Each structure stands twice: as C-alpha cells, then as structure tokens.
C-alpha cells in the first residue's frame, strides 16, 4: 500500500527527501540548539558552550571508537570500564610512579604517563579482539566479560577508594597533568583539540584508507571480505584496539579534569557511546556508519541533556527524552534506507534494465 503511493512520487521528490533524511542528525542538532537558545537563558554564552563541548567531547571520543567497532559488525561494551581503569592507572602513576620495591620507585612525566595509560587501553582492546577472533566469543559476550574484569580491576587498584589530588610533581615533570583537563589553546580547551585530532584521524581512516574500507566490508559481509583477501582478524584487532585507545584518552581527560581518579568513573558510558553512534546513522547490523554522523550524534545527546538541565527539567524526564530521541532516530533511519534503495532501483530501471 505504502509502496504504491510512494512509487507514484516523481524521483525528483525522492531525491530531495533522501537529502533531507541524510541530513537528519544535523537538522536535529540545529533544532535542539535553536530550541534551547530560545527557552534556556545563557544557552549560547561562550562560557556555556565551552563547558558543554567539554561534556560532549568525552562521549564523542568513545562514540568514535564505538562507531568503528559497530561498522565492523561488533559491539564494545567494555569502553566505560576501560575509562575507569585507565583513569585509575593514570592516577596511580601520577601519585606513586612504579614501585620497584626496596624503597625505590620510578616517577614519570605527563607524556610518559599518558603513553602508558594509552597502552593499557589498547591492551584491553587487544584482549577483546583476541577473545572474538581466536576464541570465537560473540562480541557482546566478550566485551561484557571485559567490562566486569576491567571494572573490578579498577576497584581493586585502590580498594574502591579515590586517588585524590592528582596535581603532579614539578620535579618529575608531571605537574602538567592538570593541563590536559583544565588548559586551553587559543581559548579552546585541550580536550576539544584532542577530539578534533582524533575525529579527523578517524574520519580519514574511514574514508581515505584501505583499512577503513576493510572495516566496512567486514561488517557488511565477513565471508565475502575474507574471500576478497581482506585480513578479517587484523581488521577486528584494529577496531577494538582503537576503541580501547579512545577509552584510555577519556580516562586520562576525566582524571585530569577532576584532579582525582575514582574507580566507578565511566559507568554506563558505553551506552551513551552506542546511542551517539546510532543517532549518527550507524547501523547495528554493521557495514554502515560515518564518523561525522557519530560526532553530530554525540552533540545532539550532549546539547539535549545540558539544555534540559539549564531549563530545569528533572533528570528523570531527561532520561525519558533521550530514549525517545534514540528510538525516533532509528525509525527515521529505516525510512532513509527504504528511500535510498528505491532511488537506486529507479535509476537502474531508467537504464532499461
């Protein structure tokens, strides 16, 4: 019935409709921004925008890593825990260095600490990939397992206590640790610059490298990709390690911003990351998604929650609204797929085939 009515629409309309549907996340972002500009006082002030973008950045990092994983046909539930564990590792290294026993310990500067934390994040990602590729564990289960293991390890690292006062020590060159979360360059917070760098890198990988193409191919049809010479195992290692890398960055940024590391940090962050990816048009079935879309998706979620807070809407309602937005996004996504397939078929039919 629907098909009949729709097919009578000339293809010009279909194309316009398709364009509108493709830009839907962006349109949604503009709409929520306009809405809050009108109804929330000071929403567009520079100070508020900076705070908001800092919030958004944390989710956006995770969502970028998550996007690659989802495009490859998997899921990474462990990122929230990676954030927590990496924050604890960072906090421990700033406070204690590495204790060699006998009263000796090695202290590190900020860069060394960051690199070591990043290695931890990537290592957990590699474990995920190992479980999934070599031991054939379903991604959902494998990363659910590492979710618990990493969270437990974070708790064990301090017996559940917070590592406070991560101010660093100028003697060791670790006093600049606070700068990551609090500093700015040209008036823009460091974490935003980092997000720009990671975002551009990820988008470049997705669009302009064979690796990126392989990620899409593996998610779209793993068998065909394998038979086309794609090294499926390596591709999966990459996406989970990249996701772990993003988790480590967020762990570092949060512990620096709070000047403290708490082992429960990052709880349920993975769900927000998945939400941002889905909102940005990433298909949970794999093979489809864009880094740019994901970042816009993260902004929609971030703007929505911060704006609702500023309007004084209860946090319970915020949760409900966030859920509704995600459901709406997926429903519209389905519509876009149908329109897109129809436009392609119409073009093909126009060839007289």
């Amino acid at each position: 019935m629907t098909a009949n009515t729709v097919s009578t629409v000339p293809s010009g309309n279909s194309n316009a409709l398709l364009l509108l549907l493709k830009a839907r996340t962006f349109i949604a972002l503009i709409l929520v921004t306009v809405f809050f500009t009108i109804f929330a006082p000071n929403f567009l002030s520079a100070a508020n925008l900076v705070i908001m973008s800092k919030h958004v950045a944390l989710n956006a990092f995770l969502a970028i890593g998550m996007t690659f994983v989802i495009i490859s046909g998997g899921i990474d539930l462990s990122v929230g825990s990676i954030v927590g564990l990496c924050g604890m590792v960072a906090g421990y290294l700033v406070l204690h260095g590495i204790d060699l026993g006998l009263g000796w310990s090695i202290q590190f500067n900020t860069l060394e600490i960051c690199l070591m934390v990043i290695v931890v994040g990537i290592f957990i990602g590699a474990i995920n990939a190992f479980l999934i590729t070599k031991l054939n564990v379903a991604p959902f289960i494998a990363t659910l397992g590492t979710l618990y293991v990493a969270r437990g390890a974070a708790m064990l690292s301090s017996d559940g206590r917070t590592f406070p006062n991560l101010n660093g020590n100028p003697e060791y060159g670790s006093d600049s640790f606070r700068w990551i979360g609090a500093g700015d360059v040209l008036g823009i917070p460091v974490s935003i610059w980092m997000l720009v760098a990671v975002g551009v890198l990820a988008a470049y990988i997705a669009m302009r490298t064979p690796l990126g193409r392989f990620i899409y191919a593996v998610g779209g049809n793993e068998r065909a990709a394998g038979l086309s010479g794609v090294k499926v195992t390596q591709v999966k290692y990459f996406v989970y390690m990249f996701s772990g890398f993003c988790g480590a960055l967020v762990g570092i940024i949060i512990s620096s911003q709070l000047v403290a590391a708490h082992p429960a940090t990052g709880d349920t962050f993975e769900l927000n990351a998945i939400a941002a990816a889905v909102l940005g048009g990433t298909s949970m079935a794999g093979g489809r998604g864009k880094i740019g879309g994901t970042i816009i998706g993260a902004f929609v979620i971030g703007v929505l929650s911060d704006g609702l807070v500023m309007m004084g809407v209860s946090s319970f309602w915020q949760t409900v609204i966030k859920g509704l937005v995600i459901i709406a996004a997926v429903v519209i996504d389905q519509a876009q797929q149908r329109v897109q397939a129809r436009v392609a078929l119409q073009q093909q039919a126009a060839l007289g085939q």
Partner: protein
Amino acid sequence: MTHPIGLKIRGGTKVYPGTVALKNADFDLRMGAVNVLVGENGAGKSTMMKVIAGVEQLTSGTIYIDDQEVQLTSTEDAVRHGIGIVFQELNLFPNMSVADNIFINREKTRFGVDIDRVKQREETRALMRRLEHDIDPDTLVGDLKVGQQQIVEIAKSLAQNARILILDEPTSALSAAEVEILFRVIDELKRDGVGIVYISHRLEELIRVGDYITVLRDGVITGARSMQGVDIPWIVLNMIGDASKDFPKTIDHPFGAEVFRAEDVYLPNTSGGYSVEGVSLSLQAGEILGIYGLMGAGRTEFVETAMGRYPHARGTFYVDGKPAKSPHVSDRIRMGLAIIPEDRKQDGLVQILSIRENMTLSSLDRLATAGHLDVVREKKTVGDYVRQLMIKIASAENAVSSLSGGNQQKVVIGKALMTKPKVLLMDEPSRGIDIGAKAEVFRVMRQLAAEGLGIIFVTSDLEEVMGLSDRIIVMSNGKVTGEFTKGTATETALIAASAVGHSVSHAQAIQANKEQVL
C-alpha cells in the same frame, strides 16, 4: 499395473521478468508411482515444483487435482490439497526436537493453550514406524545425520496427510547406505498410494527408482514416458537436444607455459572423510579448464582451497612455478589467483556497499600509496572496468544490491580482474543470471583466455562445459574421475565419470541388499 493421474498441469506457462521459465507444459503426476523430473539447471524443474507446491503461481494454464480445477495460491492451499515438498535445503529447526519440528505451526494442543507433547510424541513415533526409522521424537534435529533429517522432513509432509510428495534432489547429501534406506521408504510410500515427484541430477539413480520420467529443457517438456526402456543416452539427448546453443567461437591461440599447478590437494571434512581427495592438476596460460561434476563433488571446495580459504587443507599450489607459502587469501591474490565464488550473495559481494567499493575491495593496495587511498584514481579505474565489461549501471555509487544478477556477476568479475590475476577460478559463473548475461560472461571468458589468462571454471552444466572448455576434468566424491580433451569428451562419458564414486557405492549397496535377502 496402472497408476491413476492425481494431478495434472495443462498448458502451464510461467513468465518471470526477462525469462520464460516454463512454456506451455503438460505434466501428469501419477499416484502410487515415482514421477521423475530431470533437466539441467534452469530448465524449469524447480519452477514447476514451486507451482505445484503453491510457492509460485502459473502465469497461464491450469492445474487439476483429481480432475478438479484448483487454484494453488499459497503453500497452505497446497498442503490442504495434500501436497508436501521436501526442499533440497532442508527447512528444519536444528535447535528443536524432532516432534516439535514435525508439528511446527500445527502443534497439538490441549484447549488451544498448552502443547500436548505426549500426543505429539506418539504421533511422531507412529510416523517413524511407518518410515521404518527409529528416531526418538525428543532428539534435537541438529543432532541427526542429514539422511535422518530428510526422513523428518518427509514425516512432516506425511503428518499433513500428503498424498503427493515432491523430493528435490533428496540424495545430494546422502551416503550410499542412506540412499538405500530412502529408496525403501519411497517404495513403502508408493505402496500406500502416495504420488512422488523425484528430482535429481543422478541419472542412474533416476532410472533405478523412477516409474515415469519427464525431461525438461529451457522450460519445455522434451520427453515424457514410462521408465521402461529408458536409458541414459535417451535422457541426455532430451536434456541437451541436438542443436547446441551458440557458444562464442574459440579464438585460436597457442597456449603458454604452465601457469598453475595443484599437487595432492586434500581437504578434510567434518565427517572424517575428505571433501577433496588427492586432486592434482595443471593449467597453461590461455587455457580454459572446465571442472565438471555433480553438486557436492568437491569442485567448489577445490577452488576455494586453491584460494586459501581453508587453512587446514593439505597440498601445494604453484603459480608460475612458484609455490604458495602462506595459506591466506590476500597472499594468493598477490600470487596471481582470483576467484569468482559460486554464491554471489554470500561470498562474492558486500551487498550494503556501493558498486565502486565492491569492485576495488581486492585491489585497494594498488590504489593506495602509504595507506592513503587515491579516490580519484579509484573512480577512474572502476569506470574503465565498467565500460570494458559492459556493466549496466546508473552510478557506481549505488548499492550493488540494486543490480540484476548478471550485472552483479560482472561486478564480481571486475573485482577479480582488477587484481591483475594470472589464473581465474570461476565457480559456476553462469548461475542465476539470464541467457543474455550468460552469453556475455562466456564472451568475456573467451576474450580473457585469448589474452593469456589461465581459467579454471566449475560447472554442473554439461553443455557449458563442452562448449567452453579446452580441456575437461570430472570430479566425483572429491576425486578426479576423468580427464578429457576437446576430442575425447562426450556427454555420456562425462556423466559416467561424474557418477563414478556413486555407482560403485550403489553397486555395493545393492550387493549388500541381495546378500541380506539371501
């Protein structure tokens, strides 16, 4: 003994967009007998069966059951008229018990609420007794052997009071012993007056089990008679016809040096035997080598092993005299091998990606420098191949799923050619594409061979293998059972070679049966 006609089709025609699958067919299905249906792939057998089973409707023509005109508009309709079908790919739920499978969607219930397992079990046991099988109703279907699963499918049809049972290639996955059991079941059903339609490619089997035979060719019934006096040459003649279809003329060219060699290839399968057993062959540049055989003969497994899909396979492959070291597909591609897989959808294409992305998937390292993909060059290369292969597309950016089967196949061929292969492995390259596209694919094959490419192509189409190959190898049960040149190949010889393993095991089974009787 006369067999009443239970179902007949008069003037049956079925038109699909682009092709006529069935032309004015008159078919009689006799009860209490095995009605054999034979023909090459795409001859219209499955179309006719789908029409009878209510899956498809005739474009024109009528179906009569017991001389009453009927409309079979759905499978439920067909079931109501007592028609059951056992598809080649079994439609069972491996995670559920035998009884649950048999009564799926028709569960025996108490007051329409809870499932009466006791009653289901009883009825299942009764059915199994009738089929002379001792399968426990509570066994999971996934734990059964393929032959037993087939029995479950048959039981499912019988449970719906099927008077007409269609078996589509029932023996393709069965061992010789299981085939014997199936034949006994068929005899039993015949005695009960069930009309059986039996589709198979194994001609000797057909002659043995059939009472009536109908041969189809290109949607037309070319022969229908009682099985008495039918022999293989008669079947082949009706299957193939006198006049061969036009295959592109051989472009006479000298063959080059040996470009590909396989030595002692073994591929173990899950049941402890070998899917490919000791296959050795060699190929010269510019030569087209056809591998003929029935489904499950190990042909697909052989080319996929050559491509490096199965790391646990044994054997050595040489390209240009250099042995393959790593078992990985990407290294085989680098050596100069390329594959056109049998199952386009599953193995050939990433449906969700665009035509461009699919075509360049195997050769991205050629289009990238230091990890940077040159998209402009990529688009240009794709454009070149699209023109060269005459692929009809609106835009290379559209999803590959929007193309017709023939054009999709050309995209797969384009993908393989882009890797600049020395040897092309084509697995059933003409499957599921229309006649026009077939001819073009064959033309491309000829042209590539003339340019010096070595081609190995796998087919179960006799005419194709005879018309296209410079040399033919026949496989059966994982082994090479015959090698023919253009001069020595005849249809009968090829068919005989393709049944080698089977007829031996048949003979043994028959022998065993006789001994039992004695």
